[in-house]
Every structure is written in structure tokens, then in C-alpha cells.
């Protein structure tokens, strides 16, 4: 299981590098765009399309799994933390895992279908620069695929914890990092 976790972490690391690049780029593109508009009356024609359809999509979908791992998705764990029995907590966590897994697999499936149809039909953005739409939609199945694997990993740990009655490392949310900013 630790090998799986290590591989997932590596994938998430690559994804987060792309996310950081996307985030920094959208800031720079927008600032340069404003400067060009006021100084030279010649803004980029493509910034709106590129930021909306690509950079923001990368930001959300590729950061999904990392955010889950870092417990960045806030949860109300006050009640669960009061439960002393490891088995009971594992059982409740399992319910959440199964639901979340089904949810993201659903989005993954739909994202894959859309990406494929974009690819086959050579759909282009209606904007000034005709960019392919599959290149935007493809991040939906990629991001959901990573988080689905992350949830599956979590699910197996919870199942093991339910079977053995022992809490393994990283099985339950660490209450200290629950606060977000």
C-alpha cells in the first residue's frame, strides 16, 4: 500500500507543478494584458479564452487529489472525532469513500466521453484563436482519475482498518490540519 501511496504522491507532484505554472501564468497574463491595454491599446486577444478554458481547468482538476491528500477539503469532523471505536469510524469513513468514488468516476466517465467526441470531431473554441476543445476537457478525466485512485487507496486503508480494528497511518483525518485558510 505504501508503494501505491508513493506513486500517487509522485503523480500528484507532477500535477501540482502544472497547477503552479497555470496559476502563476494567469496572474502574469492578466497583469501584462492590463498594461498592454492602457499603455499600447493592444491587449492580448487570447487571454480570456486561455485562462478560462485551460488554466482555470488545470488549476481545479489537477489540484483535486492533492487537496484531498493535504486535507484541504474542509470537513466537519467534530462529531466523528468523538467516536472512540476505530471500527465504527472506519465504517463511516468507508461510506464516504464509496460515495465520493462513485461521484468522481461519474465525472471522469462524462469527461472522457466529451474529450473523445471533441477529438474525433476536431472541435475548436469559437474565440479569436481557434484552440482545440479536447485539450481543455482532457483535464477532467485526468484530474478525476487521479483523485479516484487516491480515494480508492483511502478506501482500502479504511477497509483494512475496519477488518483489523486498528487505525493505520493516515487512515483518519488529522484534526490539527482541519483548519483551512
Amino acid at each position, binding site marked *: 500500500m505504501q508503494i501505491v501511496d508513493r506513486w500517487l504522491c509522485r503523480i500528484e507532484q507532477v500535477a501540482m507543478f502544472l497547477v503552479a505554472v497555470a*496559476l502563476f501564468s494567469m496572474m502574469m497574463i492578466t497583469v501584462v494584458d492590463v498594461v498592454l491595454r492602457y499603455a499600447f491599446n493592444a491587449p492580448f486577444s487570447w487571454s480570456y479564452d486561455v485562462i478560462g478554458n485551460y488554466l482555470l481547468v488545470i488549476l481545479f482538476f489537477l489540484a483535486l487529489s492533492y487537496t484531498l491528500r493535504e486535507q484541504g477539503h474542509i470537513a466537519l469532523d467534530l462529531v466523528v472525532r468523538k467516536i472512540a471505536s476505530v471500527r465504527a469510524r472506519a465504517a463511516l469513513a468507508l461510506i464516504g469513500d464509496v460515495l465520493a468514488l462513485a461521484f468522481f468516476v461519474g465525472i471522469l466517465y462524462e469527461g472522457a466521453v466529451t474529450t473523445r467526441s471533441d477529438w474525433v470531431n476536431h472541435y475548436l473554441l469559437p474565440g479569436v484563436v481557434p484552440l482545440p476543445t479536447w485539450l481543455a476537457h482532457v483535464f477532467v478525466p485526468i484530474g478525476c482519475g487521479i483523485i479516484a485512485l487516491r480515494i480508492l487507496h483511502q478506501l482500502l486503508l479504511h477497509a483494512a482498518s475496519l477488518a483489523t480494528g486498528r487505525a493505520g497511518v493516515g487512515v483518519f483525518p488529522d484534526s490539527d490540519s482541519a483548519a483551512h485558510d
Partner: protein
Amino acid sequence: MLVISIVLLLILFLVIGMPVGFAIGCAGAIGLYAVGGIPMLLSILNTTPFSTAAHYELMTIPMFILMAEFIVVSGVADELFDTVNAWVASIRGGLGISTVITGAAFGAVCGSSAASAATLSSTAIPQMVKHGYEKKLASGLTAIVGTLAVMIPPSNGLVIYGIIGDVDLGKLLVAGFFPGILGALTLTIALRYLLWRNPARGGGTAANRVPMREKMRLLKGIWPMLVLFILVTGVLYLGVATPTEAASMGAFGAFVLALVRRKLDAARIYRALTRTARTSTMITMIIIGALIFGYFLTITETTQNIVGGIGALHSPRWVILTLIICVYIVLGCFLDQVAILVLTVPITLPIITALHYDPVWFGIIVTLTSEIGLVTPPFGLNAFIVSKTTDTPVEQVFAGVTPFFLAMAVLLVILAAFPELVLWIPNSMPH
């Protein structure tokens, strides 16, 4: 019946500790499946997550968060408390008043109430306690001062309200400024009152009078914050840039500031970016989940029934407004602000506009209730942050907050009764 079961299911998912965004999304998805089967569910799952993530104006949110990250790294706010304190030190209750002003000034460049509360907890509370303030009072004050950042632009709560309710973002953000200042004033008055009623609770001043030259020197250290404030709020007021652009320039300004102050290296920039991505992804996930749930409410005609039902009441409009505000305060005790906004604004805003209230003003009212929600038990996030950073039992923080909470409730009534107090600045905008 179906709607009630799904709402109960949502509460169950939240209680078993599912992340808020997942819980709302899954409950909504189950509801959609119950109404329209797999085809309806899949068509929503096809469009909503992508179109929400790809919503251009939502970029304002990561930019505001990034701005806050860079400001914290730059350390420019570290000297803020000392600077303010040097100017008001000789007034009775000076340290407490400094805390309030610092919180408001921090809020003017940083939209994160959590960052504000954490920064103030580590700087202001030790100073106050050292100079004889009761710890309960000091921690309660700090917890609620942190929430001023929610209202004073940059403010992500207002951005989400504006996007969901299709209200002018620039006007909304500018509108948050004056009520934020009124909030600071309210807390100052409440503090002075408490210290006057019971001088034993504190009020000592930090030091002797600070010489004028030292005051000016300290002031020089914080001028970049003023520039950043103008870069965002000033630009929005003048309408020379869109909110998205103003937010990006704010983030860029904070980035340059941290760079000039030699507080940035590649690792720190990367850390600021990933932390921003984490928070912004969490927010987007909640928005997506709540939108899916919202479709379920719309398809089952729940939204329309609630709006129509309230319209048919024929009660005076202030009664309905009071009811809505009470619902927001109760929800704020239990649910995250983003989720509350996305779930309720599609229902409440049509009611409010039908009653001829102003949507910008209503956004400020809702934001004030969410400020209050950050310090009320059982889930008041800011109270927990102060409790953790200062090692004070959270019950004590909640107790210390109570009088300030009541003062903010009075402000809420005043703003609800006099919309002009909120609207005079946005209505004077050149565009």
C-alpha cells in the same frame, strides 16, 4: 418528501465527516438520480464541474488568495500592529484599539479571516495579556477582529455572492469597504464600553508616548500596504479594471512586495502557489457540489415553491427580511460560508429583489451574517484558530466573543434598517 429525505441525507453525509463539497455534491447527485435517473445525473455531471471550473470570473478567488499568501510571506503586516500601536498607545484601551485597527487594515489587503486571526493571535494577544488584559477578553476580541477581513475588500465571500446572484462584482467589493470600517468602529465602541464597565479587565497602555519621529519612521514601513489597497479597491472604485484584473494586480503587487523585501525564493513562491491552489480548489469543489444540489432543488421546484410561498405571505417586507437574516445566522453556526451562499442565494435573492431591496446591499448583509458565523459555536472557525494559536480553551474564546457578537448584531440591525449606509459609496462610483 423526496426533498426532505435528500436534505437529511446531506446532513448525515456532513456529520459522518465527508468533505463539505463532496457531501453536498453526492447528496445532490443522489437526488437527481431519484428524480431523473442516470441520464439526468450524467448530463449534470457532464456540464457542471467543467463549466464551473472554467468560469472566468472565478479567477478572482485564487488571485485574492494568492495576494494574501504573498502578503503573509512578505512580513509587511508584522510591523503593522506596532505601527498602529505607536499612534494610539496613549489612548485608554490602546492595545485593544490597535488590534481592531490592525485587523481592519490587514483586511484591506488580505481577504482571509483565518490568516488575519492567526497573525493577530500571535502578535496582539501576547501584548495585551502582558499589559494586564483579561485573556478571555483579548482572545474574544481578536477572534472577531479577524472577521473584518471577510467584509473589507478583497473579499471572496462577496465574489461568490456576486457570481451566483449575477450582481455587479465591482460594486459589491467597493460596497464592503464602509460597512467594514463601521464594523471596526462598532468593536472599538464595544471594547471601550467593556473596559469602562469593568476596568479590571484591562485597558493599560503598551508603553510610554512614542516620539513623533519614531511614529513617522514606523509609518514608512507600511506604505506598501496602502499602495496595494489602492491597486485593488481604488482601481475597482474608479472602474478602470475589472474585478478579475484588479485581483490579479493585487496578487502581482503583493508578489513584487515580497520579492523586494527579499522574502521570496523559488521554494517559497511554489509553496504560496500550491497553498493557494489548495484553498481555491476546496472553494470551487464546494461551489460545484452546491450547484449540483441546486439543480436538484430547481428540478423538484423546491426553489420556486419557497419563493412563491413567501411571496404569498403578504407580510410586511421587513418581517420577511428579518426571517431571512435569522436563517442565515443559524446556518452560519453550522455550515461553511461558501456552501451557504451557493445553496441559498438562488432562493433568497429573488425574494429580496421582489421586495424591492437592493441586491448589493443584501450581499453586504449576508456577508455580515457570515462574519458572525465565524465566531459562533459550535463551528466558529476563527474562535478555533485563536484557541489553537494561543492555547486558550475554545469555550473561553466563545465566552470572550459574546459581547462583541452582540455589538455586531446591533450593527447588522442598523445596516438592515438604513441601506444608504451601505450604498452611498458604490452609488457614487464613476461608472
